[in-house]
């Protein structure tokens, strides 16, 4: 239990790497930077593996949480704050530097360190010729530190530290090319939009503290499960909604998703690690972590499900027509995150978590693949200028093909299992109350398959559309870049098998592993008459009906349909190929191509960068209004007051000059002058004079003592 007992060291490991980079990085050579930064992540990964192994022998499959509190880092001391619990009982406000390990955090721990390690290795190749190499790796290690803090936190405040920290790292990495205006403004955008969500998070956490008197997950869960609160408790509902606002910000859900596409300004490994695989799933993690609260707030659950489903289809629709390869993937990520929230919202926590797990692999794979393409194309990101890369970069091609199959939900790749589990749960939950959302999800699946295969065809298969200059420069990639791709492809292929559904004769081991975390909530939902939700494994053991097989076949069909349409449309895309949507529905195309004008709307309504006629709304509008108020009302008031003051001070000055200065100060000064002449004799300015006075004093003392 050595590593388990010292699990608090786990986040420190990458922090050491970051510290080394920030303090000494500038002076280190590439090989040293690689050794340190990859080294700490390797250590962290091994540490995480051993810790999880030790944890599983600790818990014996009971899901009992391991909690390690190191010290209290934020606290009110003995001062107590009123809490609503127990009729206003007083609680101390304490947040520990505490660490919690349960199956949920184990899952995150493993894939964050694992995928993180692969992406770090990939980055050594991808970033090899970039300036600020040490800075990049310092930020990456810093991100790993905060992400691990977030995952391992045992209370909301500690989690918030990690939450803000990953936001900071994300900001730094999006703005990595800070000399590019678009990059720095994208970083600002990400930061500001995230802040909106963070306000929700903090308010939610504080509401929970006010209501339940603790920040600790274990305390909160125990209270929530104690049955003292009825389902639909309004305060808990409010807290859950506020937390979900935080999750929306971090995980890019409607309406706060706008920062994620712009975040693609950062280096591609960053997009892969932070904006696809790990950080954006923090919202999912937080909601899953707070499941005890959420099941007591059915309204919030519904909101989560609906927002998730809408985000999924909305983002997918925009991905259909994007030409920038990374943007396609970015919208795809938003869409997949929507899927995850859909799962959480319908109570299928395990399925949602499983989708996070599989998505981490194939989305990281796709992003790294796109990075490889961009590298091979010397920085070109527009798919209209690609095509026919299949034979130039074969490894990238087949690994990305695996990733595409996985995300499109083709059997037996990872995406199939997780996506199918979500859709199946959506179909069955609450006796079919959410079936409308199933249709949304199904449509999204179809669209996903289409845009992913569109991406594949436009880059790898169709005719060569790039300029001859670039075509000659297309080159193969180093081992450090292809090796992570291959490993991730194998994971994308195999990860799904961890949760081979029982309906297909599997054992759903992943669900069984995570299940204890959500077990109690399943009971709650059961009591509320909403059986049919929750724990996929359990349920599937009971119902393996024909509907499930049907749904599987349907979703396979959806994938195949998307593939087919893309195949038809882009198989031979030449220089002047036509988008099928643009041909059939030009207006819709315009709408999608401009991303539903959401950014513009936000500019009109919230930021005020665009004016509605003469009126500026949003932040700038408020600023203008405040400015007007300031100049017209406040300033003029101040000017009036100033005039009065000046008049008074003129009077005062006269008094000061003639009465205070003249009579009081100078008068007294002249009075002291004669005394000063006497006193000055003792301060003659000659050293020997002082010595003489000393001797005089000596004589005086002597006389006193001799003739006393």
């Amino acid at each position, binding site marked *: 239990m050595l590593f388990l007992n010292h699990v608090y060291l786990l986040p420190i490991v990458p922090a050491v790497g970051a510290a080394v980079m920030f303090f000494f990085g500038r002076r280190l050579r590439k090989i040293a930077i690689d050794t340190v930064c990859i080294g700490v992540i390797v250590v962290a990964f091994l540490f995480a593996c051993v810790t999880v192994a030790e944890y599983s022998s600790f818990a014996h499959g009971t899901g009992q949480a391991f909690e390690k509190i190191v010290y209290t880092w934020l606290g009110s001391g003995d001062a107590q704050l009123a809490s609503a619990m127990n009729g206003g009982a007083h609680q101390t406000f304490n947040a520990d530097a505490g660490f919690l390990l349960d199956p949920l955090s184990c899952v995150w721990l493993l894939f964050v360190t694992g995928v993180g390690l692969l992406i770090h290795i990939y980055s050594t190749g991808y970033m090899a010729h970039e300036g600020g190499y040490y800075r990049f790796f310092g930020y990456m290690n810093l991100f790993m530190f905060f992400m691990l803090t977030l995952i391992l936190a045992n209370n909301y405040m500690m989690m918030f530290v990690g939450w803000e920290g990953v936001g900071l790292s994300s900001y730094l990495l999006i703005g990595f090319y800070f000399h590019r205006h678009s990059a720095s403004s994208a970083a600002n955008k990400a930061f500001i939009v995230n802040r909106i969500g963070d306000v929700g998070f903090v308010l939610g956490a504080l509401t929970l503290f006010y209501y339940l008197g603790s920040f600790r997950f274990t305390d909160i869960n125990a209270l929530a499960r104690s049955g003292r609160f009825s389902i639909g408790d309004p305060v808990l509902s409010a807290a859950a909604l506020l937390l979900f606002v935080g999750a929306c910000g971090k995980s890019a859900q409607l309406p706060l998703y706008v920062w994620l596409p712009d975040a693609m300004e950062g280096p591609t490994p960053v997009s892969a690690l932070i904006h696809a695989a790990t950080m954006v799933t923090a919202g999912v993690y937080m909601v899953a972590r707070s499941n005890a609260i959420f099941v007591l707030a059915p309204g919030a659950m519904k909101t989560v499900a609906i927002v998730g489903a809408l985000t999924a289809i909305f983002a997918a629709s925009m991905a259909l027509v994007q030409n920038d390869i990374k943007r396609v993937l970015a919208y795809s990520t938003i869409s997949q995150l929507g899927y995850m929230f859909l799962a959480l919202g319908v109570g299928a926590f395990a399925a949602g978590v499983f989708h996070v797990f599989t998505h981490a692999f194939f989305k990281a794979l796709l992003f790294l693949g796109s990075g490889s393409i961009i590298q091979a194309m010397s920085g070109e990101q527009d798919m209209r200028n690609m095509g026919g890369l299949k034979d130039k970069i074969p490894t990238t091609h087949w690994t990305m093909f695996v990733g595409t199959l996985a995300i499109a939900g083709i059997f037996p790749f990872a995406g199939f299992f997780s996506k199918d589990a979500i859709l199946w749960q959506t179909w069955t939950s609450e006796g079919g109350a959410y079936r409308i959302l199933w249709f949304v999800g199904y449509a999204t699946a179809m669209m996903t398959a289409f845009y992913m295969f569109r991406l594949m065809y436009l880059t790898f298969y169709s005719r060569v559309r790039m300029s001859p200059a670039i075509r000659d420069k297309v080159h193969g990639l180093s081992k450090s870049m292809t090796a992570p791709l291959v490993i991730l492809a194998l994971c994308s292929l195999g990860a799904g098998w961890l949760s081979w559904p029982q309906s297909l004769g599997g054992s759903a081991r992943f669900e069984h592993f995570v299940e204890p975390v959500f077990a109690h909530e399943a009971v709650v939902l059961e009591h509320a008459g909403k059986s049919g939700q929750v724990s996929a494994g359990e349920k599937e053991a009971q119902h393996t009906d024909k509907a499930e097989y049907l749904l599987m076949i349907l979703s396979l069909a959806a994938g195949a349909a998307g593939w087919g349409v893309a195949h038809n449309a882009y198989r031979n895309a030449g220089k002047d190929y036509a988008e099928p949507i643009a041909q059939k529905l030009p207006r819709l195309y315009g709408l999608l191509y401009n991303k539903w004008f959401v950014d513009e709307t936000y500019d009109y309504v919230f930021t005020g960068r665009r004016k509605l006629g003469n009126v500026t709304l949003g932040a700038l509008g408020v600023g203008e209004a405040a400015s007007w108020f300031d100049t017209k009302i406040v300033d003029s008031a101040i000017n009036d007051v100033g005039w009065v003051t000046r008049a008074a001070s003129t009077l005062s000055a006269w008094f000061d000059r003639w009465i205070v200065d003249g009579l009081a100060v100078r008068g007294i000064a002249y009075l002291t002058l004669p005394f000063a002449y006497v006193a*000055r004799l003792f301060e*003659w*300015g*000659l*050293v*020997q004079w002082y*010595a*003489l006075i000393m*001797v005089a004093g000596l004589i005086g003392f002597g006389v006193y003592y001799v003739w006393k």
Partner: protein
Amino acid sequence: MVPISTLHYLIVAAALFVLGVVGVLTRRNLVVILMSIELILNAVNLNLVAFSRMWGNLHGQVFSIFITADAAAEAAAGLGILIAFFRNKETVNVDEIDLLKW
């Protein structure tokens, strides 16, 4: 001949002390003034050692050792000041050190 008593030493010490005081009060050269201070300290040392003999213990001698250490420190610091001063004003005459004079 009168046997030498403590008083003899005290008178010698008093003479040295007064000569040192005269030096401090009358000479213009800062170096000589510092030397006169050494004279004064020596007079004090002589007193202490004489008393040490008179009382038959060694505390006076220990004190005189401390005073010797103090004199060495004083000489080092004093001469340091003197050199710094000489570098600025090209003189070591004490009555030309008058920046603080009104």
